């Protein structure tokens, strides 16, 4: 099994199901279900932006995600819909968070950015009540969209679960999703491993192995793939054996069409003899995207010599077991 094979299969599934990411009429409805419309499209865009960055232009995967990015951008009518969304919900942060994914792929709409800057200058915007992890995400979205971030990253980081370096045995699902997103925001979705402070990097190198192992035992594939993406976003990767074991288990969860189910419950529902494409879109789209994302980062991070990444400045030598103290 190669990580690359997981990535290719996952993107095959995404390509085959791209129409399910399309924005329907409800995307701009007053009572629209953001989680079923803009969220999947934004996630598709973010993953494609990352895969595009991790693959050279001649690579078929690069071509494929470029086409998917064009597809996604067309859904927003080349960004025009962000202006419409803003007129409907001017102080909602999610439009900017989704837009930031496009902006990071170079797909920008100057008119929307100018409008967003006006809103982001208000005290009301700065005081939006939200989870610490989300707060970090909004700061990052502002930066990526060319806006002046409304606050500094370190205090926002300190308020997150991960930022406080909690006892690793208190890890549970919600904490796991919070911590993966903290790392995604700190590293610009894997682009810059130096965004992870040294103490966080050590902490993650210590504790990712038991988190990955237990999440995979519980067949929480979606969170496992996010953790693998985190592992590939660090200044130094975890031990190869940890990654090899986890990727092998993720690969074993693939359906014939390349989809990765979010959780084991979807596998159980599919029965002992599932067809090649057994999962509903909502049961697998996110985990399949995360598998492609994590695989792209892993492949780039472990690519021979012309390593794309650079270790953060640190002292001490890695003793071969866990992170240095």
């Amino acid at each position, binding site marked *: 099994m190669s990580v690359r094979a997981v990535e290719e299969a996952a993107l095959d599934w995404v390509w085959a199901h791209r129409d399910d990411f399309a924005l329907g009429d409800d995307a701009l409805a007053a009572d629209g279900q953001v989680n079923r419309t803009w969220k999947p499209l934004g996630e598709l865009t973010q993953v494609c932006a990352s895969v595009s960055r991790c693959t050279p232009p001649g690579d078929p995967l690069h071509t494929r995600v470029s086409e998917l990015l064009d597809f996604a951008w067309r859904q927003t009518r080349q960004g025009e819909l962000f202006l419409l969304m803003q007129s409907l919900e001017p102080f909602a942060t999610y439009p900017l968070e989704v837009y930031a994914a496009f902006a990071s792929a170079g797909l920008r709409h100057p008119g929307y950015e100018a409008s967003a800057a006006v809103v982001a200058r208000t005290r009301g915007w700065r005081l939006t009540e939200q989870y610490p992890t989300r707060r970090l995400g909004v700061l990052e979205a502002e930066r990526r969209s060319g806006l002046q971030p409304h606050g500094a990253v370190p205090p926002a980081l300190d308020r997150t679960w991960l930022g406080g370096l909690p006892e690793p045995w208190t890890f549970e699902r919600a904490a796991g999703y919070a911590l993966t997103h903290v790392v995604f925001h700190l590293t610009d979705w894997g682009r810059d491993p130096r965004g992870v402070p040294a103490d966080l990097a050590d902490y993650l190198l210590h504790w990712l192995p038991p*988190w990955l192992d237990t999440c995979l035992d519980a067949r929480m594939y979606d969170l496992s793939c996010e953790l693998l993406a985190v592992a590939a976003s660090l200044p130094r990767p975890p031990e190869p054996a940890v990654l090899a074991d986890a990727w092998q288990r993720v690969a074993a969860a693939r359906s014939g069409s390349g989809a990765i189910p979010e959780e084991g419950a979807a596998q159980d529902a599919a029965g002992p003899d599932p067809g090649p494409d057994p999962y509903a879109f909502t049961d697998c789209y996110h985990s399949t995207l995360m598998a492609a994302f994590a695989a792209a980062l892993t492949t780039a991070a472990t690519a021979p010599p012309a390593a794309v990444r650079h270790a953060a400045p640190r002292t001490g030598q890695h003793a071969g*077991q866990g992170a240095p103290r």
Partner: protein
Amino acid sequence: MEQSSTSALLQGTVLDLASDVVSALRSGDHVRAGSTLTGGGAGEGVARAAVRVLGADTLLPSLLLGVPPEPGQLAVFKDAVAAHPPRADAAPTVVWSHWAMTRALRRTGPPLDGPLAGGPGAEPDARWLDGASWQFLTHQLAVLAPLALPGEECAVTRVARGRPVDVARGFVRAVRRRDWQQAAGAGRWLTLLDGVPDTLGLEAGLDFVRLMGGSDPRVALQLEAARLMPAVVLR
């Protein structure tokens, strides 16, 4: 049917015996502990088998608190050691558990006689742990928690000392899996190891294991050991 009732009896005896040890560790005095081995409640064979399961930890109060073992207990313990030497093809944990029991006898009892009197049993090797995954390592160490003693020097403790982060990972895994016995055993080892990451929060972790799993006397035994060990120097 007979077999399952025997195994239920053994399991109950192991728990009773573990409770005795916990009481002794808490009170600091084995006399005030229960008397599973000497009260005549369990048959001789079951008592010996229960001692084999609990291993050297049966004598832990004597080892950690320095009080001589109660003679009746010691007699059953000696019988258990003498009657069941590990077979040639026994698993490494069985061989090591036996070695630890012999070691405990030498440390706590009067000079040995009979079949146990020969020179110190050759120390088994720990090659089966070479290159072990952190998951397997932690599991095996938890099974061999009776070897986790202050100042103990053997091949297994040397392996554990070389892999503090891996044992800490195993602790996290065991807590996540709600495997309180493994968590408590790993936690006991961790109290002895240098180089455990501070972020583990071992003290709070042991309290958490006690809160969630401490009603099982086998778990409580490991936690009591972990509590006492930092202050103890073995003879």
